[in-house]
């Protein structure tokens, strides 16, 4: 790992590029209907933006931005959004992930409800993939050390 305040060039470029990478991740997520992309690819980009910050600074600083606890909550939130959408369809009388049933609670027809349901599922996938990427990277990079940052 590169130590903190080691190199002003790398740090400032990582700081400058991170919001653009995250905006591009959202772009990839929302354009997944019409072009290559979707939740998984957007989530990987979102996770990679955080990994870039951790590489440019150091792992303690990264864990101060996103703690392990918050990361675990993000993991669970994504899965909850995914399965909650499916379960909502189940409650509304359809099958699991039968998005057309969402038209009962959304002010749109069944066809548009399908699109919005897929978007909700993709958002869940994006959150989970980003959090898991960060989680895997932190576990591999810290090799189980930095216990003080787990708080």
């Amino acid at each position: 790992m590169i130590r903190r305040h080691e190199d002003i060039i790398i740090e400032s470029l990582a700081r400058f590029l991170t919001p653009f990478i995250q905006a591009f991740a959202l772009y990839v997520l929302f354009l997944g209907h019409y072009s290559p992309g979707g939740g998984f690819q957007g989530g990987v980009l979102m996770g990679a933006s955080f990994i870039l910050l951790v590489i440019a600074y150091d792992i303690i600083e990264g864990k101060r931005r996103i703690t392990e606890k918050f990361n675990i909550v993000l993991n669970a939130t994504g899965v909850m959004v995914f399965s909650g959408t499916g379960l909502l369809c189940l409650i509304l009388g359809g099958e699991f992930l039968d998005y057309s049933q969402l038209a009962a609670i959304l002010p749109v027809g069944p066809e548009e409800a399908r699109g919005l349901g897929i978007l909700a599922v993709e958002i869940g996938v994006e959150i989970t993939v980003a959090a898991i990427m960060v989680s895997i990277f932190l576990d591999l990079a810290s090799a189980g050390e930095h216990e003080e940052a787990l708080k």
Partner: protein
Amino acid sequence: MSIMSIVSILFIAGGTFFFFGATVGLIRFPDFYARMHATGKGDTLGAFLVVIGIALYNLHNGLELGSILTSIKVIFIAIFIFLANPTATHAITKGGLDAGVVPWTKEKTK
């Protein structure tokens, strides 16, 4: 053949020339730092010129809103390469210096 096609061909040919120079440098230069020096500059300019050439070629059927938007996105990629590639080269070189890679000098070969 429109003027835009000719300009984009010139750009892409120039980009491939710089790629060629960078690759020759990567293969022929004696040590880590010299190789990073060759690829860091040559690849950056080569990729920049090729991507700009692609963005211009996209406009060779005439200026429509859709193709202009696509070209702007491609130019964003070029700007990203232009920022990220030299910084990555800098980071790798600094990593090598921190890890203790000794620069090549002429006396050592004797």
